[in-house]
């Protein structure tokens, strides 16, 4: 073992062990945005995002996404926001997540599709896919990627994240399972992915804050948060989503209850792989819409 291990005792020296899983490595040397810069993250919520059955309302989701990209790109017009990051000649893959129990949802996918098309991309130059991205001709030729997935706890990686959503860009996902998915961010430097991602949307409409059973899903551990976390920086988006999940776990369980599997891939994406910013002090969080119950 060549590197210094971080042990339970290291945390006991400085603080309670309780926030351990959530704040695993940010004490290491920080990298990401240049000094003085922050990664912008927009948290947009709407009390009407979901209908009585819990399904997303497409028109509300569209409005939330429009507001988010305007805030993210400092524009007043959603199309202008999209045009600032997508060119008409781009070939665009929208990487979604089709997990049966908690998918990205069609409402989010279609809102993103409309946004991309508002930048001038013809419909035949964009595709929405998850498990077929390596075979999808649009994704194979993509010049730009949009990344959207729901936030959830995960039995192995700790959390299902924007970073993790790109695991379908490798032929053998299990190759990245070592050390509870510590180095998922490596995927983002593969030639067919690197530098192409223009937007990340961590869907927090009905996040899953606790995993049980083989499938890790139980509706009891979801709640109608009614939000989207939108950022150009996947690490910052995920770190923000993690704060929401940990806060919900604290509220639900009545005590700090760290994620059992440490989602250290988020922090290592920052400290080891330099993909983005994970620490709160390097994230500019813009809050839009409903504030009640935001938890963070």
């Amino acid at each position, binding site marked *: *073992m060549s*590197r210094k*291990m*971080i*042990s*339970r*005792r290291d*945390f*006991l*020296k*400085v603080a*309670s*062990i309780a926030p*351990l*899983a959530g704040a*695993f490595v940010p004490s290491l040397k920080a990298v990401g945005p240049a000094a003085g810069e922050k990664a912008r993250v927009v948290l947009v919520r709407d009390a009407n995002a979901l209908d009585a059955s819990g399904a997303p309302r497409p028109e509300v989701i569209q409005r939330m996404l429009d507001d988010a990209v305007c805030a993210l790109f400092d524009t007043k017009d959603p199309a202008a926001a999209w045009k600032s990051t997508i060119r008409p000649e781009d070939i665009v893959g929208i990487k979604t997540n089709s*997990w049966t129990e908690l998918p990205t949802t069609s409402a989010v996918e279609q809102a993103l599709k409309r946004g991309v098309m508002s930048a001038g991309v013809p419909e035949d130059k964009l595709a929405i896919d998850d498990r077929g991205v390596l075979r999808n001709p649009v994704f194979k030729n993509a010049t730009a990627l949009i990344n959207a997935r729901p936030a959830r706890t*995960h*039995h*192995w*990686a700790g959390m299902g994240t924007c970073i993790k959503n790109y*695991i379908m860009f490798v032929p053998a*996902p*299990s190759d990245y*399972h070592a*050390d*509870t*998915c510590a180095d998922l961010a490596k995927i983002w430097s593969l030639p067919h992915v690197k530098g192409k991602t223009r937007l990340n949307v961590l869907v927090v409409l009905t996040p899953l804050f606790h*995993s*049980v*059973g*083989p*499938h*890790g899903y*139980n*509706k*009891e551990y979801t709640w109608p948060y009614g939000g989207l976390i939108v950022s150009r920086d996947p690490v910052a988006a995920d770190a923000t989503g993690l704060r929401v999940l940990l806060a919900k776990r604290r509220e639900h369980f009545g005590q700090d209850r760290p994620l*059992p*599997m*440490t989602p*250290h891939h988020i922090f290592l994406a920052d400290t080891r792989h330099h993909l983005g910013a994970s620490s709160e002090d390097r994230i500019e969080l813009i809050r839009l819409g409903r504030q009640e119950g935001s938890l963070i």
Partner: protein
Amino acid sequence: MIAQSRPSAGPMAGFIPRTIGPWLSEADHVYDAETIFQYIDGAGEVYRSYNMKLLVSRRFHKDGRADIVVDFFDMGSSEDAFGVFSHDLDGDDAKIGQGSNYKAGLLSFWKDRYFGSVYAEEETPETRAAVLDLGKRIAAAIPRNGPAPKLLAFLPPEGLDAGRTSFFHNHSILNYHFFVADGDILLLEQTASAVLASYETAGVKSRLLVVRYPDEAKAVRAYESFSRNYSPEAGRAGLVRTGDRKWTASARAGDIVIVVFNAESEMAAMNRLAAVESLIGEPGPPHT
């Protein structure tokens, strides 16, 4: 994904009823340790870490009602069936098989070399009854019990929360239950077997870890690694006071390494170590 693997799914499938009340079963899906990711993505690593052999998944459907899903695992040994069951101990004892939990529509149980999960996609009084009935019928169909991990016998009973003991083989699962270090400083390496137990004495909660290695030489290296990385200032007694003003003590006895975490006092830590050593049957200074 129909069966393509080594152990036959036939006998396992035979343990699962074809119907449950008004629900009818759909076609079985069978996965092995290589294909499980197609069914439950990266979380399949949990089952692989317990050496799973085969999974038979059967969905029960009835129009107008929530589906019920049975995931029935052959873990290869009763120790690992217990182990994967012990991975998630939340819930109420449903008194099914050799150990069970039920919470919010999810039943987990183990018996012999099998681990079963029965899950209703929505919990109602009707689905709850169906889930429990399915579990009982599956467990009853398994012809025999299997032994629990032998390491459980080395846990001193005084103060033990017997329903919270976990069994595992690697440091990721150890950290799931109780974070020790971000690396495998105990050299579990999927070749060791370990139990992590919870104790409460006078309102103070502590943990006891007992690890058995494939041989004594490996235990020696593991103990040295743990001592070097976790408690380098400890003396021969392996005793240190940690930042939370509690005590950690460790020892090796043959091919077994013992660690007491979070003991309320030096004496409590040493007494628990001694109690384990006594149960192992190798009293006396274990340190080399």
